[in-house]
């Protein structure tokens, strides 16, 4: 069976500066991977390279989503193919109601996949269910996307988008940053509901804390733009004890 995400010897740069240095990672459907590492190790870069953010350039190697070469796809094609990035700092879209945004995004993806658009009543019903799981007020969804949202509200909104769009591969970039413990539980609960045998989840985090709620199958340590160690969920606990110092020196 083809892996959901297959990264082979990937090198990537921003403005001529190489950030990823021969990255290898394989995520199979049904797995949850955690990528941990010190600040500046290129964790967010990985998520931007995979999702196709302008300015992030692959110079060598390959990244395949369900066998398809991501470098040959535009940002929106990658999204329609099932790649979702939950942003560390979600962007504001002034004047565009969240509900309008959700509808536009979902139907754009469906259209690209040759599927029927979701009707407005079905859509509202589904969003209501999800908002309940995430303990969100429907009133919030009438407000412009992320405008005036607190840190916690933004992360809930990201999770709601992810649950609605039902991607094949979810990449969560520092989703725990800016969350208090209650919000962390709610968001983690949402993510856990997305765990399925058909879906892969990559959790990028600096701290072990999030992994108390989203239990990973595999934990990787990233340093200086590549994975330097891979283990089971116990590796996260070990890192909590020892810190990243030894990996930083290893990379240097």
């Amino acid at each position, binding site marked *: 069976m083809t892996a959901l995400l297959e990264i082979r010897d990937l090198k990537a740069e921003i403005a001529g500066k190489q950030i990823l240095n021969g990255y290898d990672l394989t995520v199979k459907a049904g797995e949850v991977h955690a990528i941990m590492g010190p600040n500046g190790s290129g964790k967010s870069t990985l998520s931007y390279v995979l*999702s196709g*953010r*302008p*300015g992030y350039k692959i110079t060598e190697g390959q990244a395949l989503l369900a066998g398809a070469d991501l470098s040959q796809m*535009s*940002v*929106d094609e*990658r*999204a*329609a193919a099932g790649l*979702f*990035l939950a*942003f560390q700092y*979600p*962007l*504001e*879209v*002034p*004047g*565009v109601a969240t509900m309008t*945004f959700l509808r*536009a*995004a*979902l139907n*754009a*993806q469906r259209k*690209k996949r040759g599927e029927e658009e979701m009707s407005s009543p079905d859509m509202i019903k589904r969003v209501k269910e999800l908002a309940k799981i995430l303990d969100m007020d429907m009133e919030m969804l009438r407000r*412009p996307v992320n405008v005036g949202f607190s840190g916690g509200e933004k992360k809930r909104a990201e999770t709601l*988008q992810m649950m609605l*769009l039902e991607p094949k591969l979810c990449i969560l970039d520092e989703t725990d940053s800016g969350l208090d413990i209650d919000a962390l539980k709610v968001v983690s609960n949402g993510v856990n509901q997305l765990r399925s045998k058909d879906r892969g989840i990559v959790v990028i985090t600096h701290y072990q804390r999030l992994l108390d709620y989203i239990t990973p199958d595999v934990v990787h340590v990233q340093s200086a733009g590549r994975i330097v160690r891979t283990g089971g969920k116990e590796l996260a606990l070990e890192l909590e004890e020892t810190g990243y110092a030894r990996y930083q020196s290893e990379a240097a």
Partner: protein
Amino acid sequence: MAAVEETVEQVRRVGADQYKYGFITDIESDLAPKGLSEEVIRFISAKKDEPEWMLEWRLEAYRRWLTMTEPKWARVDYPAIDYQDLYYYAAPKSTAGPKSLDEVDPELLRTYEKLGIPLHEREILAGVERPEGEERPRVAVDAVFDSVSVATTFKEELKKSGVIFCPISEALREHPELVRKYLGTVVPTSDNYFATLNSAVFSDGSFVYIPPGVRCPMELSTYFRINEKNTGQFERTLIIADRGSYVSYLEGCTAPKRDENQLHAAVVELVALDDAEIKYSTVQNWYPGDENGKGGIYNFVTKRGDCRGANSKISWTQVETGSAITWKYPSCVLRGDNSRGEFYSIAISNGRQQVDSGTKMIHLGKGTTSRIISKGISAGRSSNAYRGLVSAHRKAEGARNFTNCDSLLIGDACSAHTIPYIEAKNPSCVFEHEATTSKISEDVLFYCMQRGLSQEDATALVVNGFVRDVLQQLPMEFAVEAQKLISVSLEGSVG
């Protein structure tokens, strides 16, 4: 390619091909001799069978115009206009006063059908979307083709409530006392170069009178179409809302694609008496010229509303996407105590378009208030300037204004300018001014695209969000259409 670069690339490709109203109607026209002279003015006046005083009025304006010079202060640049190389009157031959729609030339009906403008009363404006089951809004339309009105719908029904809605040439014959009482009282014949020219040669336009206490039972709309080559369009619109009445009026405009520039110098006068309210909306989609700046309409328009009565209100809402050059400042003279003026504008420029537009709020009466919300979007190699005046007379005790001007830039070859003038002669006034200029954010586009929206849809979404405050002011029936128009103007891929 970076998202913004791609948008810029798409915008570059837009240009002329995207203007879907650029077709030419092949119809025989009755033209005045080329050029401008007293004879031509007499010709126009005779064609319209006008009273003697009207001819004198025109001639006086013409003589004054000869002494005036074209204004040069706007941030626009164009070659000198040869006023003798234009036709000042063009009328489809077949329309020598059609009595009913059945008599209108089928070629003209087809033209309006193509433009999505219903001239049959059972139809509704194209692009109007309503949930099923809800009654469809009815809109009365006056269709002006080159220099003449070719059809006006729902006249009979409006008449029942006392509303007069007809071509101004007809009003001059049927209601001369009303026209004479109000014409030129808001924009005098001496007002400015283009308004004076209009006063001399105006050929048609709409006339609206709402009697005291009447709420006009439907939206009124005039649809302007310039078809004939080398022809200027000089329409004149006069709307009078008598005491305690209300009317909502919409104006739309398109023109064929032609290589030479066409001149459009209209005058719109609004008069609101005590407690009356006029809401005037414009969706301006004149041909903007091709990507190299060839062709397109010169839109030199004077629009002014006079809040003549106490507690009256005039509101201008405009969506401007067309014209090679726009020079236009819909204004409010707040004469009546506690009167209110509003100006909501979306001005989009692309290609080589040049826009110098804004408003004037002249506070004369006590307790007058005004609000200005202007959203300018520049793309391509266009230039987009907001120019606005807010002034208070010595007697304008307690006048208030709030102004908000936002500019959005797409790409790095366009420009945006904000030129506000504020003059307060009464110490009790409160004038507020806010302005921002920003570039469309690459990060926001990336965020939207990561959720599955294409480059174009993401841009359209961001722009629609940017202009939302103003779109909300449009009559609902037209908001959908305006939203689409914005996407087309910027993207070129829609439709």
